[in-house]
C-alpha cells in the first residue's frame, strides 16, 4: 500500500498545472489528508495536491486496494475526535429559552432577556470566554457572559473550540448536584437544537461556516429575519422603481424634443424628423455625430431609487454581511460590510431569479460606484464592478456556489468620448479622438 501512496504523491506533484484548478470542486482523496501531520500544525500549513483518479472501475485487486485505502483514510479523518485541552477548554451552556440573567440575579432583573444588550436569538452562553477565536463573535451581557447566536455556537463546537452543556433543567427533572451531571452536547444534538432556531437554515449555516473557515468575519444582516418589514412603507413608488427602471438617453421623448428643437431651429446640423439621424451639413466633431446617433434608451443604476434592505422578499434579501479577513470590527461600531450575501436553496428556488427579483435585491444594497485610479483607467473593470452589487450564495444540497451580481451601466460608458478607450487590433475603423 505504501507504494501506491508514493505513486500518488509523485504523479500529482509532477503535474503542477493541476494546482490551478479549484480543489474543492471535486471529491478529494482523503488519503492525501493523512499525509498532513495534524499535531505539528506549524509545519503543515499547505494543502495537499489532488490525487490520481481512474476512468472506470475494473476488477483488479490493485484498484480495490487503493479504493479501500482511500475509504479507510476518509474514515479515519472523519472519525477524528473533538478533544479539549484543559488549558484551552471553554465550556458554554445551552439556554433554550433565550438570554436570561444568571439564576442568582433573577429577582433584580425581572425583565428577562430584554435590556441585556444581547440579541434575543442567542441561545448559548459562555461564563468565561478565553482565546482569540471568541473575539469576533458573540455579545457580552453585563454579567460578563458571552452570548452566542446559534450559528456561532454550532461553528465553534464543530471546530472543536467549544464544549456546550445541556442545561440541567432539560436533562434532569430535579437534582441536588447540578454541576455534576451537565452532559456535553454532541455535534448531532447541537445541530438538531440550534438549526431552525431564529431563522437559521442549514443553507445559511453552510454559507456562514464556509466563509468563516476561510477567515472572513460574518455577521447577520438586518434582513436576516424573513418577516422583518420596514417601519415606513412607501409601496407604490417602489413598484414603479423596478417595473419601469429609470431610463436615460433620448427615447421617444428625446426624439420628440429633437423635433421641437428642429421646429424652433430648422437650420441646425441635424434634422431627425425629416431625414436621416445625422443630417447633411458640416460636422466638425465625431462626438457630436455619435451623440446624435445615441437613440436607444438605457438604464442608469446610479439613478435607481434606494430601497430599505427590509423591503424585500425572501429569499432575495441580504441575510449576511461579510468582512474581509483582518478587518477590525468593534462590536459597538460595526463598519459597512465588504460583501452582502443572499442565500438561496436550490430545492426551494428552482428557477433562475427574475429581473424584478434581482432588481429589488440590488436596490436594497447601497450605491457602490467604481472608484479609484485603476477603475478610471480600465473600462471593462468598471462595467464589471457595476454600481451596486450583491453576492448570491446558491446552496445545492450542501454544495455551495457564490455568484456576484453587479448592476452594470453600459450606457454610462461613452466609447467615443472615452479617454482610455480600449483599442482593438484592427487598424481601421475606430480611432482615438485627438485632443
Amino acid at each position, binding site marked *: 500500500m505504501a507504494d501506491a501512496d508514493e505513486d500518488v504523491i509523485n504523479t500529482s506533484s509532477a503535474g503542477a498545472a493541476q494546482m490551478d484548478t479549484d480543489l474543492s470542486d471535486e471529491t478529494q482523496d482523503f488519503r492525501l489528508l493523512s499525509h498532513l501531520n495534524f499535531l505539528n500544525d506549524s509545519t503543515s500549513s499547505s494543502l495537499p495536491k489532488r490525487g490520481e483518479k481512474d476512468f472506470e472501475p475494473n476488477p483488479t485487486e490493485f484498484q480495490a486496494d*487503493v479504493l479501500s485505502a*482511500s*475509504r479507510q483514510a476518509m474514515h479515519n479523518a472523519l472519525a477524528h*475526535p473533538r478533544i479539549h485541552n*484543559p488549558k484551552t477548554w471553554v465550556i458554554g451552556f445551552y439556554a433554550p429559552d433565550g438570554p436570561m440573567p444568571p439564576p442568582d440575579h433573577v429577582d433584580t432583573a425581572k425583565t428577562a432577556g430584554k435590556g441585556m444588550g444581547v440579541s434575543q436569538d442567542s441561545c448559548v452562553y459562555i461564563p468565561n470566554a478565553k482565546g482569540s477565536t471568541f473575539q469576533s463573535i458573540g455579545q457580552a451581557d453585563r454579567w460578563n457572559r458571552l452570548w452566542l447566536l446559534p450559528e456561532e455556537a454550532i461553528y465553534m463546537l*464543530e471546530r472543536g473550540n467549544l464544549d456546550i452543556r445541556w442545561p440541567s433543567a432539560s436533562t434532569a427533572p430535579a437534582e441536588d448536584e447540578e454541576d455534576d451531571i451537565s452532559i456535553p452536547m454532541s455535534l*448531532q444534538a447541537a445541530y438538531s437544537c440550534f438549526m431552525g432556531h431564529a431563522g437559521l437554515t*442549514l443553507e445559511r449555516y453552510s454559507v456562514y461556516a464556509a466563509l468563516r473557515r476561510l477567515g472572513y468575519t460574518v455577521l447577520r444582516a438586518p434582513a436576516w429575519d424573513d418577516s422583518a418589514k420596514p417601519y415606513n412603507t412607501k409601496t407604490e413608488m417602489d413598484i414603479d422603481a423596478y417595473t419601469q427602471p429609470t431610463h436615460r438617453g433620448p427615447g421617444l421623448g428625446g426624439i420628440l424634443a429633437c423635433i421641437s428643437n428642429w421646429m424652433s431651429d430648422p437650420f441646425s446640423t441635424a434634422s431627425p424628423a425629416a431625414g436621416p439621424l445625422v443630417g447633411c451639413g458640416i460636422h466638425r466633431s465625431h462626438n457630436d455625430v455619435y451623440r446624435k446617433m445615441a437613440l436607444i434608451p438605457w438604464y442608469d443604476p446610479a439613478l435607481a431609487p434606494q430601497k430599505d434592505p427590509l423591503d424585500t422578499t425572501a429569499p432575495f434579501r441580504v441575510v449576511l454581511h461579510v468582512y474581509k479577513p483582518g478587518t477590525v470590527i468593534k462590536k459597538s461600531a460595526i463598519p459597512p460590510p465588504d460583501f452582502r450575501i443572499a442565500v438561496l436553496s436550490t430545492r426551494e428556488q428552482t428557477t433562475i431569479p427574475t429581473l424584478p427579483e434581482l432588481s429589488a435585491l440590488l436596490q436594497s444594497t447601497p450605491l457602490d460606484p467604481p472608484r479609484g485610479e485603476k477603475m478610471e483607467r480600465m473600462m471593462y473593470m468598471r462595467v464589471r464592478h457595476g454600481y451596486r452589487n450583491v453576492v448570491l450564495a446558491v446552496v445545492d444540497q450542501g454544495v455551495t456556489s457564490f455568484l456576484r451580481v453587479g448592476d452594470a451601466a453600459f450606457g454610462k460608458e461613452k466609447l467615443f468620448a472615452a479617454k482610455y478607450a480600449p483599442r482593438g487590433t484592427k487598424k481601421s475603423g475606430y480611432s482615438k479622438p485627438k485632443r
Partner: protein
Amino acid sequence: MDFQPTLPIPISFISGRYLLFSIDAVTYLRREHNTCGVLIGTLPQIPQQNVFLGLPLELMPEEARLLVDKGVACIVDEAKAQKDGMQSLLEEDRRQYLRELESQGLQAARIVAGRKEQQKEDYFKKSLEKKGKKKPNVQSKETSNGDPTASPTGPSTANDEPASLGDFFAGDSSSSRGTSNSTPNPQHTYGVTPTTSYPPLPHPSASSDAILSRPDVPLSYPLFAHMHTRGYFLSPGLRFGCQYVAYPGDPLRFHSHFLVVSAEWDQDINLMDIIIGGRLGTGVKKGFLLGGPQKEKPEDGSEIERTESVRTFSIEWAGM
C-alpha cells in the same frame, strides 16, 4: 472498516434536511449502498479550509428516500428525539455516560502526552546527531524534567516511552480513583465533544413516535433510482450545470461520466437546452445524459414500474 451498523440506520431530519452524523453509518452506506452524500461540516483537525470537510453528511431527499425504500434507513425527527431522549434519560445512565466520556478524555490525554514525548525525543535525537557539543545541555534539561531513565548518550525510545507513559497512567488512575464521581481532574483529563448522541440516548426504535414517513422527492426521482440501481454514484450537480453528476464508481477514485438531467416523457424540450447540455458535457469530457420514465403519472403504474420504465439518452458532440 467492515463495520456493520444496526439497521435501519437513523437519518436525522433537521430543519427540512437529511443528515448523518455517525461515521460508521457514512462509511457503511458508501461501501454497500453507493450513497456518498455531501460532507458539510468542519474538520476539527484542520478547520481553516474548505477542501476537506467533515461530518455531518447531507443526503439528498432522493438518497434518503431510496435508503428508506430499501429498508436500510429510517427518518428520525432529531430535534424531538433529542429533547425527549434527554428528558427521559435516567440519572444512572447519565452518570455512566459521563464516566465513559471521562475515560475517553483520559485516553486522549495519554495519547497526546505520549505523542509529545515522542516529539521531544525526536527533537533531542536530532539535535544530538547534529551537534555532539550540545550533549551537556540536553542532559541538564532532561534531568530537570525529572526523567531519570533518559540517558544522555542515546535516549532510546524503547526505554524511555513506557516509563514516562507508565508514570502518566499511574498518576491518572490514582487521581480519578480519589475523586471518583465528581468533576474530572482538569490537570489530566481532556474534554470530549462526542459526534453523535447515541449513546447516551438509546437507538431509536421503529415504533418510536419520532420516526417520520418517507421523504418527498422531486419528479426526477425515477431517473435517480434507475441510475443508482445500475451502480452509479450520484451527487448534486447544479455546480456543473446539471441535476446530478453520475460517477461509475466511488467518486474518491473515479471521474464522473455523465451530467444527468431528468425530463418527463411528453415534456417539450428546448432544442437549445440539448445543444447547451451536449456542448457543456463534451467540454468537460462527460456525456450529457437526458432521461425520464415513460410512465409519467403516478396512476400510470407503481413507483417501481415507473423506475423500470426509465429510458436514458446520452448526447455527445461527435464532430472531430
